[in-house]
């Protein structure tokens, strides 16, 4: 006689399949609950929070968006240790357009998003043929090298950066927060849709066995490039947006912070899905705010999070919670 742990879908989950979800309110709430909850929270938080917490929420949304872009790349096998590349490119592009050409904010941000995406993809294009680790190594190096180039050649403001860029104009601060949250929600559900579609299927297949995909006549790099472009655009948007919030862009746009936070958000929240990135950001960013006092030690804490969560909860918090939500465990006695 032996005790074994068995996991079974909860009754609600088993019943709520396809059209049968409409069977009763219980099933409908079970399925749509978490998403609605999140959307409602994001819709109402900005108005009920005070000024300081609103800034924190903006940070959360920013890093969540970066985390989603990281996750998209990771699911295609491109693990990037340098998400700041896209952030910096987007930030600098919009800063340059605004500073040198005087273009207004509502022009620079979309253009920086698209062109930033394009440039980011272009820079990383030669690395797509390489194994994942090479990619990681290169993404770590490129933003750091770009920083040094800016410092050395003193272009685009050099170490000083570009100051005095336009703000968003006379709009409510809350409006900006909603803009960012809207971008977050669109990206989140957009990416989820993407991965559910046949595009996502091919991506998962590439992850599983790329030789088989090649023998089906599919060009791997084309899929990776498109995913990279989307992720790059998201990162560039973040950079462009924050440039106009801070009204400044400089070398810190390529800083290690923007590389590590998305990584930490995904490690904590969970790989393989986008909701995990958002969850991770909601956890990591507020904690980092509390740690503001200890300065550089903040990064040490991120590192600690990375290590501990990678080892103890590799599936990530979101996957863990989802599993608990959908299934329950109990002990079964089994004949030996």
């Amino acid at each position, binding site marked *: 006689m032996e005790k074994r742990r068995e996991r079974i879908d909860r009754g609600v989950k088993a019943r709520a399949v396809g059209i049968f979800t409409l069977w009763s309110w219980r099933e409908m709430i079970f399925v749509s609950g978490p998403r609605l909850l999140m959307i409602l929270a994001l819709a109402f938080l900005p108005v009920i929070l005070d000024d300081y917490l609103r800034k924190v929420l903006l940070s959360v949304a920013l890093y969540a968006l970066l985390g989603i872009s990281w996750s998209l790349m990771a699911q295609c096998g491109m693990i990037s240790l340098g998400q700041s590349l896209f952030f910096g490119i987007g930030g600098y592009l919009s800063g340059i357009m605004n500073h040198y050409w005087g273009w207004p904010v509502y022009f620079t941000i979309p253009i920086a998003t698209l062109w930033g995406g394009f440039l980011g993809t272009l820079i990383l294009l030669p690395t797509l043929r390489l194994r994942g680790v090479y990619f990681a190594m290169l993404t770590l190096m490129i933003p750091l090298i770009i920083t040094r180039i800016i410092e*050395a050649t003193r272009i685009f403001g050099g170490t000083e950066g570009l100051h005095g860029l336009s703000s968003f104009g006379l709009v409510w601060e809350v409006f900006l927060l909603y803009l960012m949250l809207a971008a977050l929600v669109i990206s989140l559900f957009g990416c989820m849709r993407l991965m559910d579609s046949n595009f996502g299927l091919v991506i998962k297949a590439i992850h599983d066995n790329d*030789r088989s995909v090649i023998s089906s006549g599919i060009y791997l790099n084309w899929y990776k490039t498109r995913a990279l472009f989307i992720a790059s655009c998201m990162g560039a948007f973040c950079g462009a947006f924050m440039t106009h919030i801070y009204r400044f862009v400089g070398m810190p746009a390529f800083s290690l912070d923007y590389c590590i936070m998305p990584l930490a958000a995904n490690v904590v929240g969970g790989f393989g899905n986008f909701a995990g990135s958002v969850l991770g950001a909601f956890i990591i960013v507020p904690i980092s705010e509390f740690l503001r006092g200890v300065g*550089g*030690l903040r990064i*040490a804490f991120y590192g600690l999070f990375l*290590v501990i969560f990678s080892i103890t909860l590799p599936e990530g918090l979101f996957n863990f919670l989802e599993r608990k939500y959908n299934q329950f465990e109990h002990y079964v006695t089994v004949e030996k």
Partner: protein
Amino acid sequence: MLIPALIYGVIRGVILTLSAIGFNLTFGISGLPNFAYGALYILAGYIMWFFLTILGFPYSLSMVVSVLFNILLGGLIYRFCLLHVRGQIMSEVIVTFGVGLVILEVTRYITAINPRMYQLPTVMDISFLFLNVYFDLQRIIVLGIGIFLFLCLRYFTRHNKIGLAFRGIAQNELTSISLGINSDWIGALSMAFGSGLAAIAAVTIIPLGALEVNEGYEMLLNALLVCIIGGLGSNIGVVVAGLVVGMAQQLTDLFIGSEWIMVVGLGAIIVILLVKPSGLFGKQKELEERV
């Protein structure tokens, strides 16, 4: 002006090679990415400083202590961190990266609390005049140790049982295990050796410059640079790449301007990626063989 520049270029190249050799051992040869490499390098420097300046140990003893400390730390990192995520390369990268971050930033914090001029003195303040060029003893030591380590590693990975085991677990872990190679133990040894090499590099190179936490990041960057250009896994590649990049950097410093040194590095990477992505001496497997 050219001859001194060439000679310093070679020395600079050897420094680069020396710094990358440990990373190459762990990652290129054993297949374990150790992104805490830069952190371990600088930590060794600080450990040596501690023993030398605070505890007053003799110079050579401090060197030995810091190398041993790193060897131990490398093995411990493997045992407590990498072991749990063995096999999933990306988790290995993330975990070691995280460990590196912790080490670097905690060190930064501690040194910021106790601000002072951190420096490692050179072995002896002697210079030699040769071919109209001044050679200081420290640089000669670097050169010597670099060559010595290279030869050692070459012999080790080809003829020594443990060295061959290192290569074995990277190429086919299951086969290695079925041949009686304890993959975990070998992995720990590989990490330990790599960290030890980082320490050796640290104690010989840091006296030439400053003992600063940012040097740790810089170091990881350089090691990655050299390994990518030379080809991961190839000792010769690391040497050649190190020399080439070192020479290019020195000449850039001389003729163009010191700010452009990193640009050279980036340019070299771009060229390599476009021409031969697996590195100068890297072994790029054909599609069918890779699968």
